[in-house]
């Protein structure tokens, strides 16, 4: 399958990308790793007239420490997150989650910004950033705004990002070892039936925040579980509440009841600090 014809522009800076977006309007789409967009273009689910390649903009890529936060450029690839020493030391759940995306070839192309902008409710990184309480930095014609991840996703494949804006970076709170030497407390569970697939249900738990993938139209917080933990419930009891307030769909992998069951079991495992 070959995508429909389009014009190809290479952005040399974030400002240049914004100018190209302004010039071409809603007919244009940003191209990062292309690992969500190109498959959609091949099957004509997307048919942009212009692609603006932002993968070569140096300022949009890389991982750096900024005070109490780690700043991750939008075009940083999954493979770079998975092998980052800073993340391994301070936000290990994010490095681990990145290593669960697809397969090595996909991780060599796909980017964190593309994954978040794509807003797939079954994706690994959006769920993980929700568990981390990340901030999404968005740059538009009027400057840069910061949106808390809890307010970013608005529906399946929908977010607060506007067509004239770029997701420029993601800010994650640092988890430096405290005096007791305890780093981040986290667990990660992704239930799949096939290699290199999206989660049938996924759970990311980090320092008392619990996020779910494939349990509704957006990645979701398991608020009832979090509240129960705060009021002293056991992990077992709190995990029983993981599906409260969710609205999972049904497909050939799983019906809604099975997804709710998975959410409870996987939440318990994630809260126990297990990965898998």
């Amino acid at each position: 399958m070959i995508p429909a014809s389009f014009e190809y522009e290479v952005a040399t800076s974030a400002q240049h990308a914004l100018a190209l977006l302004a010039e071409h309007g809603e007919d244009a789409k940003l191209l990062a790793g292309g690992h969500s967009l190109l498959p959609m273009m091949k099957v004509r689910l997307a048919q942009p007239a212009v692609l603006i390649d932002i993968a070569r903009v140096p300022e949009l890529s890389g991982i750096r420490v900024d005070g109490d936060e780690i700043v991750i450029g939008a075009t940083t690839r999954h493979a770079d997150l998975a092998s980052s020493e800073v993340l391994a030391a301070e936000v290990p759940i994010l490095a681990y989650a990145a290593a669960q995306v697809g397969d090595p070839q996909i991780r060599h192309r796909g980017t964190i910004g593309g994954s978040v902008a794509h807003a797939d409710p079954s994706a690994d990184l959006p769920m993980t950033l929700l568990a981390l309480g990340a901030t999404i930095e968005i740059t538009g014609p009027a400057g840069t705004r910061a949106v808390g991840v809890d307010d970013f996703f608005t529906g399946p494949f929908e977010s607060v990002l506007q067509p004239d804006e770029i997701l420029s970076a993601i800010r994650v709170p640092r988890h430096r070892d405290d005096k007791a030497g305890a780093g981040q407390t986290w667990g990660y569970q992704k239930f799949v039936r096939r290699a290199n697939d999206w989660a049938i249900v996924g759970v990311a738990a980090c320092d008392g925040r619990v996020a779910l993938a494939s349990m509704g139209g957006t990645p979701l917080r398991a608020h009832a579980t979090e509240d129960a933990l705060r009021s002293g419930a056991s992990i077992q009891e709190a995990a029983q509440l993981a599906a409260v307030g969710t609205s999972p769909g049904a497909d050939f992998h799983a019906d809604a009841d099975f997804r709710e069951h998975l959410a409870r079991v996987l939440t318990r495992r994630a809260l126990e600090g297990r990965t898998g």
Partner: protein
Amino acid sequence: MTEVKLTVNGVARSDEVEPRLLLVHYLRETLGLRAANVGCDTTSCGACTVLLDGESVKSCTVLAVQANGRAVTTAEGVVNADGTLGVVQQAFREEHGLQCGFCTPGMVMAVTGLLAENPRPTEQEVREGLEGNFCRCTGYHNIVRAALNAAARLQGAVPSGTVPSNTEVSA
């Protein structure tokens, strides 16, 4: 049309291409390099795997224009200068790591990329490293043996031809 300048298997190329041309079609049709196969065309099977600046990618999901200025390596490019099989290819042959051979060029490139990133992988790391490559024939065990064989040879641990082909690999 857009101009692309890149090196393919060490040779500098320059071509006018349509932006929508996929890298795999550029390699196969424009350059006549037919090693990379199109299997699924949906980023799943890995038959189209090539190296882009030394890293494995699925060339059915990369535009030729995205490879502009970069180095592409295909299975044709890992053959030795004298025309004999490269180390990874030789390991596949020795371990019977192929049957129909359709997945093999992609497997060879995925293994080449994996060993560049992790020269001494464990068996488990090989299996995870090849998660993006499907084989409908072999059942994978001999492919895993081939990857471990190639790793040992590249480490200089074993001279060519001396890795026993019944190397223990767990099911």
